[in-house]
């Protein structure tokens, strides 16, 4: 079993971090993983994206050409990677920055106003955690507990308030994913 993911958005939206937390959690759960970022000029203002592979077998190519899952935090991400999603695949998109839908018959599309939800929770910064939550709720690719443990270790002392907001955002995402 192999899952190939692309997470994409404007630099600063946290698309690379979405990929990082998924990769790390899958590693903790015993999977083979790779995380390959785009780097270069697009990191500043354009579309930053990352290829993530989660696999039972060792990862050969870390490069994802046709994702099973696309996390699109902005419109250019849908335009660029939406047509490449495999049949029966999944797209999770942030409606607040994606006015145009993908509208493919053979792809499961979940749209959520992530900026709005993040603001309701209390911080713009947790937008990407909603996306992670949706991935967990919809696919069960990784467990909530694994990410909770990782985030707690990372933020408990540094910023307990942000930790709380992050966990709230993931839980809200899981609800959306399960709907």
């Amino acid at each position: 079993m192999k899952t190939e993911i692309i997470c994409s958005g404007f630099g600063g939206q946290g698309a690379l971090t979405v990929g990082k937390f998924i990769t790390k959690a899958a590693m903790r759960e015993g999977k083979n993983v790779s995380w390959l970022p785009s780097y270069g000029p697009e990191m500043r203002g354009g579309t930053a994206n990352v290829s993530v592979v989660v696999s039972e077998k060792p990862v050969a190519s870390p490069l994802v050409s046709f994702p099973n899952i696309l996390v699109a935090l902005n419109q250019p991400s849908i335009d660029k990677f939406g047509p490449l999603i495999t049949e029966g695949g999944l797209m999770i998109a942030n409606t607040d920055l994606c006015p145009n839908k993908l509208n493919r018959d053979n792809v499961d599309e979940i749209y959520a106003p992530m900026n709005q939800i993040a603001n309701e929770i209390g911080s713009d910064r947790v937008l990407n955690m909603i996306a992670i939550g949706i991935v967990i709720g919809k696919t069960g690719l990784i467990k909530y507990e694994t990410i909770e443990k990782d985030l707690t270790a990372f933020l408990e002392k540094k910023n307990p308030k942000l930790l709380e907001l992050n966990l709230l955002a993931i839980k809200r995402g899981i609800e959306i994913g399960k709907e």
Partner: protein
Amino acid sequence: MGEKVLMKGNEAVAEAAIRAGCRLYFAYPITPQSELIEYMSRMMPKAKGTFIQAESEIAAINMVYGAAGCGKRAMTSSSSPGISLKQEGISYLAGANLPAVIVNVQRGGPGLGDIQPAQGDYFQAVKGGGHGDYKMIVIAPSTVQEFADSASDAFDLADKYRHPIMILSDGLLGQMMEPVEFQPMKTTEEIEELNKQHFDWCIHPNQPEPNHHHHEINSLEIDPIILEQHVIKLGQKYDVITEKEQKWEEYSLNNDNEILCVAFGTASRLVKSAVDQLNTEGFNIGLIRPIRVWPYPYDAIKKAITDNVKKVAVFELNLGQMIEDVRLAVNGKVPVKFMGKVGGILFTPEEIKAQLEEWLQEEK
């Protein structure tokens, strides 16, 4: 081995070098290698080592020359254009029989090129980018784990042969994150033991007899009679290395392979995906991946060309460099095909698969 951590290749090789006993690191920043120098700047002081951001790549390699002359484990790193600047120093290290480790995180070239992954420095690394009769052991990792493991491998080889060793990676390996398990940190006593092995030739103060005398670290020899003997000795060293230090991986290799692929580093991973896919569709493709690109595993490739192999296919992220060594190994027995990508662009496994299918079709 400890717990698995998720790390960028650039950081993993830096951490592994410190664990392997490197306490002297000199470099100048360049993308896509900068996380390596950044990590060293943070961690080397904690390991009570010396980190210097040199004024240039040339200064850095010559600092390595000085440190290596004192018998210590020293390292520098850069990316392609910076490695070009270090070539004079590398030739001097080889000429003076000095152990050192140089990491190249390759990017697109020639010239300043771009900052994306490429393999265009194969000739420079393997055939000698500097002047004179020298060879360098060149380790070409293909995963972040291997990239990390190559650090202690390189230092051990450098000490064993008193010779500069290059780790030839690329921007993809440097930038990507994969799980890594590290070797334990060498203790102060272990590092002292490593240093002692060089006391009979290196510059080291306050040594007891018999090493308390004048040692000379030099690559200059004006008398041609003496230089001739020196270079002949270097040649003998390369002969031993060629015989003992070849390393390669055999992937899906068997007596019925229709096509034998050869690829190294990042390119080999992309080829593996295509090979896996084709083999599940009923074809029989094998792959040889040189783990060290010098000394080159000519005999391993020669042996893999059974009577069933119709073609050898070489994949590189350049215009075709390693293919010349593959041709030497194949020696005209079967056609050697090539697929390359340049400019820092990667070929996708799908493109490789389509190319292999075309070559398979030609045989039908």
